[in-house]
């Protein structure tokens, strides 16, 4: 009675023992340590008794010796229950596959929305997204996270200022802000050409208008270059001045180059580890080696898993371990200057218009202190300095 639970756990059977001498059978069971219980005598020299499945073989041996017959009436306990459940495995398979399918479907991309893009950009964006693996039917937890997608898409798309990527359940939403290149309004009214910068006039090509400066003149910012008034005195006519005035403009660029720098690079070796995280406990699923890297950085990418709209306590975790390498770079003073010059030129090219020409460069200042070489470079650049300034039309004249 007291170990009913253990009987049930191991499984027990109810048997009918047919033959005489039931008491002798009970005694021999006791002698050989076989547990029997609920012994109930019936008519015609039959006895009903329960015994453990574990002991069944021993009981059979004993019964053979005594020449008694046995008949199994009932089977109880976990092993038989499990077998019964297994017999109806259709239910079980159905239940499990329902959960699995629900799980897969709720972690799948069902829709991709693009807002704020014209058809051309939308097409390009969708193509870029496909390259990243974002298509309908893909499993969300296998994709990089939203921030990463946003970064990569923004990198790939050229004619887009910003892409906002958000995920609502099974829908990815791309919000696009397109670059709007303002159309240049043709100036039709009368206008002058004025200088945009302080410069020395190098050459000019005037299509329309009256130039008021000559080559090698020095002009300030905003000073008049080509007048919109043409014709002799009293017979002046207003036109919109047109032309190009090239001026020599001076640019000063300051760069400093440290003589020795240490920085980290990736060696390209990496290991991926996959985890299933349950309530913050990470269970490794695949990839068990840490990778014997001396120096490394780890990037952790966590994706929560959803069942329908509910967040499950499970999440998929991917850990990228990359080997890094500390590199030390040192320059001699000469090299540092050369590098500094290159850097300064790069810096300059960002500032000047595309059609500008660098006429000459000079090292203005150069000094070395605190392990750094500081260069101040002066560049002479020839560029178009003319810009259109409309002439206000005086009313009432």
């Amino acid at each position, binding site marked *: *009675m007291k170990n009913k639970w253990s009987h049930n756990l191991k499984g027990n059977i109810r048997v009918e023992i047919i033959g005489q001498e*039931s*008491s002798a059978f*009970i*005694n021999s*069971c*006791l*002698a050989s340590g076989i*547990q*029997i*219980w*609920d*012994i*109930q*005598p*019936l008519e015609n020299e039959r*006895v009903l008794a329960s015994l453990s499945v574990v002991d069944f073989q021993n009981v059979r041996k004993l019964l053979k010796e005594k020449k008694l017959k046995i008949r199994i009436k009932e089977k109880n306990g976990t092993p038989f229950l499990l077998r019964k459940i297994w017999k109806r495995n259709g239910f079980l398979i159905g239940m499990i596959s329902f959960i699995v399918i629900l799980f897969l479907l709720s972690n799948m991309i069902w829709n991709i929305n693009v807002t704020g893009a014209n058809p051309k950009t939308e097409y390009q964006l969708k193509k870029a997204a496909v390259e990243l693996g974002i298509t309908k039917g893909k499993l969300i937890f296998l994709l990089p996270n939203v921030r990463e997608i946003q970064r990569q898409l923004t990198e790939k798309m050229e004619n887009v200022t910003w892409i906002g990527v958000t995920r609502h359940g099974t829908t990815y939403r791309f919000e696009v802000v397109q670059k709007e290149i303002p159309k240049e309004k043709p100036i039709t009214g009368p206008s002058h050409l004025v200088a945009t910068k302080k410069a020395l006039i190098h050459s000019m090509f005037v299509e329309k208008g009256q130039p008021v400066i000559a080559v090698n003149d020095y002009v300030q910012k905003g000073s008049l270059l080509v007048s919109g008034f043409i014709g002799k005195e009293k017979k002046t006519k207003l036109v919109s001045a047109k032309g190009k005035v090239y001026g020599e403009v001076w640019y000063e660029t300051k760069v400093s180059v440290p003589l020795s720098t240490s920085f980290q690079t990736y060696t390209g070796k990496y290991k991926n580890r996959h985890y299933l995280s349950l309530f913050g406990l990470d269970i490794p699923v695949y990839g068990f080696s840490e990778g014997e890297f001396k120096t490394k950085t780890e990037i952790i990418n966590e994706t929560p898993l959803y069942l329908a709209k509910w967040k499950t306590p499970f999440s998929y975790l991917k850990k990228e371990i990359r080997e890094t390498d500390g590199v030390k770079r040192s320059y001699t003073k000469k090299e540092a200057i050369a590098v500094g010059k290159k850097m300064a030129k790069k810096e300059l090219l960002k500032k000047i218009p595309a059609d500008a020409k660098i006429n000459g460069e000079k090292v203005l200042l150069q000094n070395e202190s605190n392990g750094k070489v500081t260069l101040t470079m002066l560049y002479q650049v020839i560029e178009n300095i003319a810009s259109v300034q409309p002439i206000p039309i005086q009313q009432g004249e």
Partner: protein
Amino acid sequence: MGKLRQQVNKWLMQNLDLPADVVMDLPRITMIGQIHIYIENHRGVKAFSNEQLALKLKQGTLLIKGSDFVIKTILPEEILLEGTITSVYFEND
């Protein structure tokens, strides 16, 4: 010799307040109304049927009569019988 030991045991029991079943190897019988009977220190089943259970003891036989008998549990020294018990006899042979 056996007689002497019995005498000693009896004396021990009476004068030292030791439980009789331990000292003298006697069965301890517990009954719950008519429906349960629990016997410790038996020596095996002699006969068992719906109306009667005969248990071997160290000395003699214990005969339990009644109806609808079922042995709920049986262990080498213990037995729990369920049913409607009408009488318990000691038979000395």
